[in-house]
């Protein structure tokens, strides 16, 4: 559940000071951040070139079934005689783009609604914030199951379900930032100069909230991957025969003794999520050193 805890701004709304986002390369270049970025980039490259480097067709059922790693395959074969290694590689191309899509969409929707709420205040604010409350009070799994049942199980529908529950954290963060900035001298003076609300939002406020949002987004990519693979694990996401990591782990349960079926896709999820989390953490140190954005919390499912 990408249910965020409070951001620090909400905890202490008045203490927030405006800060121009500044990249401090010294901290950003922490070894963890670099390692994370390297692993993440590596996975993204894999996602792009997977069709070329796969030793077998990830969908072809032409090998001996349930073969342990080593007999001509790197990670063994599954219950239908498909090459696990090729499927793990192919899974990168399935999960990563969708996780990125999910985060980008959440940011767009959340930031726009949050900015509107924070900037216009009054009933607009009240309405949007109560909607975020409503969404956050709603259990993700039920939502995903209902959407999967209504629209059919597919990864895109899983993204849709995840999107519905994940935009509010951005709306809340943006609202908090905008709310604090709205009163600041330079925004007020801009308005006195005759800036329209839109121009004021775009020119004076937007540049100052990019940092924290970026940090939250980078930390959220990992959460998004966990959420999507968790939904696939429950059979609410990827459709067979798509090679998706969560559903591969789910298939592995059926053949417990064949440890390689679950180990490798699980490790794939783990490494990529850790990588993105390292990057996000380093980004936070660089862009938002006092940690205004606390990572969205709660279990993925």
């Amino acid at each position, binding site marked *: 559940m990408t249910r965020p805890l409070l951001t620090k701004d909400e905890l202490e709304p008045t203490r927030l000071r405006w800060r121009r986002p500044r990249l401090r390369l010294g901290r950003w270049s922490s070894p963890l951040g670099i390692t994370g970025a390297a692993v993440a980039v590596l996975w993204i490259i894999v996602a792009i070139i997977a069709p070329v480097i796969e030793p077998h067709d990830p969908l072809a059922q032409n090998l001996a079934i349930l073969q342990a790693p080593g007999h001509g395959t790197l990670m063994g074969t599954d219950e*239908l005689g498909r090459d696990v290694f090729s499927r793990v590689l192919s899974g990168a191309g399935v999960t990563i783009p969708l996780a990125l899509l999910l985060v980008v969409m959440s940011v767009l929707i959340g930031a726009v609604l949050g900015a509107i709420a924070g900037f216009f205040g009054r009933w607009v604010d009240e309405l949007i914030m109560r909607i975020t409350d409503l969404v956050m009070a709603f259990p993700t799994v039920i939502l995903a199951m209902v959407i999967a*049942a209504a629209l059919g*199980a597919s990864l895109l529908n899983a993204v849709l379900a995840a999107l519905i529950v994940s935009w509010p954290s951005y709306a809340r963060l943006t609202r908090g930032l905008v709310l604090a900035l709205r009163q600041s001298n330079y925004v007020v003076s801009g308005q006195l100069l005759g800036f329209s609300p839109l121009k004021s939002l775009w020119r004076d406020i937007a540049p100052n909230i990019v940092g924290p949002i970026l940090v939250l987004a980078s930390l959220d990519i990992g959460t998004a991957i966990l959420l999507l693979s968790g939904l696939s694990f429950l059979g609410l996401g990827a459709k*067979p025969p798509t090679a998706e990591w969560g559903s591969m782990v789910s*298939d592995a349960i*059926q*053949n*417990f*003794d064949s440890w390689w079926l679950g180990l490798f896709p699980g490790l794939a999820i783990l490494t990529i999520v850790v990588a993105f989390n390292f990057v996000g953490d380093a980004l936070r140190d660089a862009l938002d050193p006092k940690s205004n954005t606390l990572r969205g919390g709660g279990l993925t499912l």
Partner: protein
Amino acid sequence: MVFRSAKTRIAVGSAAVALALVVTGCSSGKTTGSDSASKTLTIDKAFDLKTADPGRMYEPTGEMVDKALYETLLSFTGGDVSKVAPGLATLKVSSDSKTFTLTLTGTHKFSDGTAITADDVVFSLGRVIGVKGNPSFLLDGVTVTKKNATTVVLTTKTATPALPSILANPALGILNSKVVKAHGGTTTDKDSAEKYLNTHSAGSGPYVLSSLNLASQVVLTANKNYDGSDKPTYTRVVIQNVKGPTQKINVQGGSADVALDLSGTQATGLGSSIKVTSDPSANVIFLLLNQNPAVSKITSNPYFVKAVKESIDYADLVSIAGTGTSQAPGVVPSMFLGALKSADELKTDAAAAKSDLAKSGYAGESVTLNFPSDITLNGIEFPTLAQRIQSQLKTAGITIDLAPAPVATELDAYRNGTETIGLWYWGPDYPDPSDYLVFAPGNVVGLRAGWSATADASISKLADAATIGGSNAERASQFQDLQKALNSSGPFIPLLQPGNNIAAKSSVSGVVYNAVWTIDIAALGSK
């Protein structure tokens, strides 16, 4: 502050615990204790349990539970469901198969010690009909009348040769009518005894219900007043809801004595301390190809149907499913009267498939295969099977698009006959081939395949003949003829009869698979 109060809380908590221990003294929550005469048996089953009330129960888990709690008028011996044996009563059938006279043997008693009377029988059967629950259809068109204190007569308007085997179904278990009535039981849909029957049992079976949680476990204890032939060895039985793969770990790890839902692959390599009983189950997994041109111009083409039948590699599907599974010879499972022999089953023929596909005018269009994504039948997962079929048909040049959906939603499309190609299974309602007449044109499953009553006159004629029946030998050949015709020109493709694998510790004896109630818990012994 916070931590100080947490400390205080811990202190208070431990004081309370200490006090509780002192006050109550230390007892044991263990059931077995040191008494060697009492034994707990743990059975792992993937639950599909909805109720333990026989009048409403119609799921495999419920059949197994109610078999232990209730006795039926007639029964089966061991795993043989082709012959009906006496149960609480003996049977006399009229020559036209319309009048069934049941005489209570009088040797059995309810768990509260009272005798079983004809009134109890009339009430129990009347209740199944009246509450309009899942098993009500079993007694459709049956009139129950009491003749005297020990005799009940069942009459039907049409010949019902299957009725004796229906009467062996645990859903028709005989309830203690006084007890059930006292807890809201009636023979109408106003009946409110289900709640009581989910916490207590009111039957004469070898066990009584100790507790029931639909999501986690059912606990049975031996019925002290039981004096039938099935006297239980284990005084306490725990049936716990565990998924197939975990069952394997549990039975190997020792926390379960019997595992009921292992797949063929899971059932191999369990070691010498575990004995696996593999039998073909009575389930038949089949494909249906919709014959309604409005649903699909492609699948309604007879040559396309033929091509698909010839393209599927049945032996390969059997090997994917693993130990115990065999190819389904026809829609009727192999252990029933009228089942086909393996010589009559569908055969793979790539060359014929190629020419038939050409004749059908199929040009590589993508055809949708709908299937329930969350069904695991005897350890066979439907998504796995569907992917294998997709891959096999791809080799034959047929493009299949998989469309999984949760069974709860997919059932609607299946029952409305809107699936292009569907992957489903039929589990018998009672062990008689007449249950399979639903596959005829214009009947329930036939319509689901878009197969109208007028679609195939020759098959309809064969089905009509089988409905009327006759002697066992006549019925067998009628159903075989029907199935041969179905195999050659029907819209159904019988694929697999999954193996039912029961893994039990070698110390547990008497494990016998029964197609109706899976296992008779009371028959399990100890070595």
